[in-house]
């Protein structure tokens, strides 16, 4: 009778179940936020005495963005949608004649003598106006990086049967084991050597 008079005890047996349910819920829904973005290297400040290296006109692919977000590529107006294709055609051209030291054996381009000699010589030069919107700039950067990635993917598929982007992501992932990393490092650097990213950015024009 004394027991009845007091507050009845609440069963706490299911508490653990509830706690586990919560735990599992949060485990599933929590995404540990990692930022992602486009990695770029800025050119080092060049010593003023050094003369700029001489580069053949045909090995440079010029991209100009004006303040309205329009593109001038190789002195022609181009829609941003066609940029990736055009950049890939330029990089993959392999214009040097077979037998010359610059000959590119893995290129599948048109081998036009007026375009780039070899992917390792090809340079993309990007120039933008001070009034250009950042979003346009990122889109252009994305397309140019995409052009390189597409070509690298093609070569990685041919040589190793795997995507370059996937290989690189695995290589950079800190959770990958060291032995796997070691193996990937050679492959990744080899593909990077086939299509080195040479993206030069001129200083912004203020006109």
């Amino acid at each position, binding site marked *: 009778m004394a027991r009845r008079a007091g507050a009845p005890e609440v069963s*706490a047996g299911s*508490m653990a179940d509830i706690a586990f349910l919560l735990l599992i819920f949060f485990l599933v829904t929590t995404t540990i936020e990692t*930022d992602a*973005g486009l990695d770029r290297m800025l050119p080092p400040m060049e010593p003023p005495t050094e003369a700029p290296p001489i580069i053949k006109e045909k090995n440079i692919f010029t991209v100009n963005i004006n303040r309205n977000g329009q593109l001038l590529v190789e002195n022609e107006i181009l829609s*941003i949608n066609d940029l990736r294709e055009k950049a890939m055609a330029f990089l993959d051209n392999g214009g040097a004649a077979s037998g010359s030291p610059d000959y590119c054996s893995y290129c599948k381009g048109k081998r036009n003598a007026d375009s780039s000699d070899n992917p390792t010589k090809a340079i993309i030069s990007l120039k933008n106006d*001070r009034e250009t919107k950042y979003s346009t700039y990122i*889109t252009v950067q994305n397309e140019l990086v995409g052009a390189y990635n597409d070509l690298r993917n093609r070569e990685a598929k041919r040589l190793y049967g795997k995507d370059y982007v996937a290989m690189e992501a695995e290589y950079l992932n800190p959770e990958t084991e060291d032995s796997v990393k070691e193996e990937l490092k050679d492959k990744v650097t080899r593909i990077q050597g086939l299509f080195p990213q040479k993206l030069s950015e001129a200083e912004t024009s203020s006109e």
Partner: protein
Amino acid sequence: MSKFAKKKDGEVPAVSTASLPDIVFMLLFFFMTVTVMKDSSLKVENVLPNASEVKKLEKKDRVIYIYVGKPTKEYEKTFGTEPKIQLNDKFASPSEVGDYILMERAKKPQEIQNVLTTALKVDKNANMGLISDIKQELRKVNALKVNYTTYEGDAFNNLQ
């Protein structure tokens, strides 16, 4: 015999709650490990552009953040509507970026001082002029590795 009969229709026995603290601690530790402290509150609008060819920024301790964007509503009166740079908790001019990078770099352990990345979190409506100034400053202090932080998505969405 009556002893047993009594127990059968008695109340439900109280369940031991001795393991409850363990469970609560487990939850606590879980959240303690996954929670990332926000070290600066945003004073600028920061809608990042989209890009598809992104790389993940691993190792948070090797990253220095620079925010750029229009000041938010509450700061609009004092700082205007032109895009501004935010370093840590305050607005800054492009010329202060170099010093900030050097200061942040000095705070990091020696062995990672050479592998730092500068993450530029720039609002999609900012102009390239300001970004160029920042890049110029970064080159001066030899912080050459930059990451234009973006959302993952179709890059052509930026143009609308």
